[in-house]
């Protein structure tokens, strides 16, 4: 698992990297939860631009982040989705629960 993040004006961006599967999902969930709890941001953007593969474990990562952001009345946004993770999100219907934005190039 490799993750970088930055906070600006109360908005948190978390960039995920590599492959997201069950092997690393728990570490991602814990790391993102810790950042949301530490900063209580107005919004949290999960940036998937550097994610090369994701199975349904990625859905659990997003659902946990959504739960944490809802608890603090914040907004969760997904961005930078490649075709493969996007297909997994569409199949699960997560794309109807969370805002998905195109990446800013």
């Amino acid at each position, binding site marked *: 698992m490799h993750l970088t993040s930055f906070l600006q004006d109360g908005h948190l961006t978390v960039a995920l990297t590599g492959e997201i*599967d069950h*092997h690393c999902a728990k570490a991602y969930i814990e790391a993102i939860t810790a950042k949301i709890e530490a900063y209580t941001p107005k919004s949290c953007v999960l940036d998937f631009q550097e994610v090369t*593969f994701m*199975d*349904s474990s990625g859905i659990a990562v997003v659902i946990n982040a959504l739960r944490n952001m809802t608890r603090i009345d914040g907004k969760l946004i997904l961005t930078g989705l490649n*075709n*493969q993770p996007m*297909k997994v999100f569409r*199949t*699960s219907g997560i794309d109807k629960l969370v805002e998905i934005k195109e990446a800013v190039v």
Partner: protein
Amino acid sequence: MKFENYMILEFPSKSANESFARSAVACFAAQMDPTLEELGDIRTAVSEAVTNCIVHAYPDGLGMITLRCRILKGNVLDIVIKDKGVGIENLEQARKPMFTTGGSERSGMGFTIMESFMSSFTVVSTPGKGTSVHMRRKLQRRK
């Protein structure tokens, strides 16, 4: 011979093997000249099936997972992923989207993804004996 090529892998139910299994199947399938989307679908379905073995079949320790992959005539990839774990008591419930017994780091979407990403999908399970997932994906022939 009904198949053109095949491979069999056996590995313990360690989560580090999820990425090994999907990469091995993707490498094997490369000879069928798949599109990136087809390869992504196959990797995802294999990852789901192997993860199910690791999380559900052997909840209290390690067990063996067998993966058999064959290339059938007509550019069809045939995959069987088998364990000798606890089995599934209620298959109908297990196949429902968002149903999981795996805790907050699982989404309950594994079977739904396998079903929708592959051309055919069958799961056979005997409680106390194990589970076998059989999937096929027909690949488009590129001109």
